[in-house]
């Protein structure tokens, strides 16, 4: 029986769509800051597989010589990123949405099945629920990454007043690397997320905007007869 089923509560849709431009601008202003000391690379010894980032990348997007501007954007938007994330977590806790979002015992096994299916290596699709195991893991991990960005960010923003945190994270230099690696993580998350949303189609995408999804769900069982 086809129905419109409520999928995403209004609050979650707002948190989600506010986070998108805010995180994008955090990454963008972060690049303006990173440019001033762009020392990270993938490689070993004198071999460099990839430098973060090639000069052409900075030039193409005019990312150079914007350190002051980058810091002023970053230290304003950090509040929005923090508050939006905090409200999201509180909402999921108090509304009970966390039950669909946190991984459970079966999630890791199911995530494996989902990945095999999505790569075309497994015929049968795992049963569709609000979020499958792979989604539960991904959506929980990305929240932990957000917390990680806040903590590593604080450790490099105020390394003396929060010296205990900076030390816990391995020191000032280490915290800066961790902050950077987490950002690369968001970019990878974004690529997979957008690819999966495109694969899942319009019905799924619309549910993050309008809240509902068209579903062909089994008819509810007939109520017990009253005598």
């Amino acid at each position: 029986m086809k129905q419109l089923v409520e999928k995403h509560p209004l609050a979650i849709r707002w948190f989600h769509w506010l986070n998108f431009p805010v995180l994008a601008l955090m990454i963008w202003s972060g690049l303006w800051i990173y440019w001033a000391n762009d020392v990270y690379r993938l490689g070993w010894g004198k071999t460099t597989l990839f430098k973060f980032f090639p000069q052409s990348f900075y030039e193409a997007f005019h990312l150079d010589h914007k350190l002051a501007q980058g810091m002023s954007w970053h230290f304003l938007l950090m509040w929005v990123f923090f508050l939006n994330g905090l409200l999201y977590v509180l909402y999921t806790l108090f509304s009970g949405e966390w039950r669909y979002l946190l991984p459970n015992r079966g999630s890791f096994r199911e995530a494996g099945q989902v990945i095999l299916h999505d790569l075309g290596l497994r015929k049968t699709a795992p049963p569709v629920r609000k979020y499958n195991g792979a989604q539960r893991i991904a959506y929980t991990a990305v929240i932990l990454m957000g917390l990680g960005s806040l903590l590593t960010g604080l450790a490099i923003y105020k390394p003396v007043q929060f010296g205990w945190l900076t030390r816990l994270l391995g020191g000032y230099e280490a915290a800066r690397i961790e902050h950077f690696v987490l950002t690369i993580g968001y970019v990878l998350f974004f690529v997979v997320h957008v690819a999966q949303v495109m694969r899942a189609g319009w019905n799924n995408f619309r549910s993050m905007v309008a809240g509902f999804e068209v579903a062909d769900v089994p008819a509810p069982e007939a109520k017990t007869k009253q005598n």
Partner: protein
Amino acid sequence: MQPENPIPPHPSPDGQNLTLPSDSPLRQEAARRTRRSFIVGGLAALGGVLGWRYLLQRPDAEGTPLPFRRVLDANGRLSAAYFKETRLAREFPKSQAVKQVRTNGSAGLQSKIDLAAWRLVVRPYGGGQPQEFTLADIKALPRVEMNTELKCIEGWSIVVNWAGARFADFLAKYPLASRSGQPINDIANPPADLAPYVGVVTPDEEYYVGLDMPSAIHPQTLLCYELNGEPLSIAHGAPLRLVTPLKYGIKHLKRIGTIAFADERPADYWAEMGYDWDSGH
């Protein structure tokens, strides 16, 4: 209470036909809700873009639009409220200090200097004759050596072996920072009429920084005259420079000329170019 899972488990929609029959009430409702949500979402996105552009086009306040400057200043006030003089920057073994210390920036060092004729000029808080000090006066204060990170606002950091006199020790001996002329005997309980800010300027007035007083009298804030056990080179700020691991490198003014106390935030070279005035750690 556990909410009902809004979507009960069901087979994968892959290949299922979920098209709603045209002119069915369900389809009309779906279309209505979709239209409404996309219009609201579109307006919110437009509002966001216009709002952000509005913020960026506000009048400039020292190199950054006013709303951004206000947030930087509010962040500074928040960290000032959290600041404690007992929190120390991490110290490292001397062996970790770099041998060749990078020089970054030479503003204020371009003019000629006669090191023998150099004097530190300090303007007392609340007026009075400026007082002059020789390097020997500074060296007569307890010598403090520390291996701390120099953190550049660009993002790099190095461990440096510094030596000099605590600014707090200077103000304990020469009580120039309080109106009543009281010395700083205990940085946790400074005189009530201590100046809230201090400004430091090079002799040619080309480079200048401002500090909040709690950071200035922090035990790791030095009037520094030695680097790796050697007197400062000209490029590193001979004969006397400011060192404080409580702030980014931009506040480590080289070649101190004049120190003055103030009620308002003193001018700051990089803060005028859009950077955070506080730039504190």
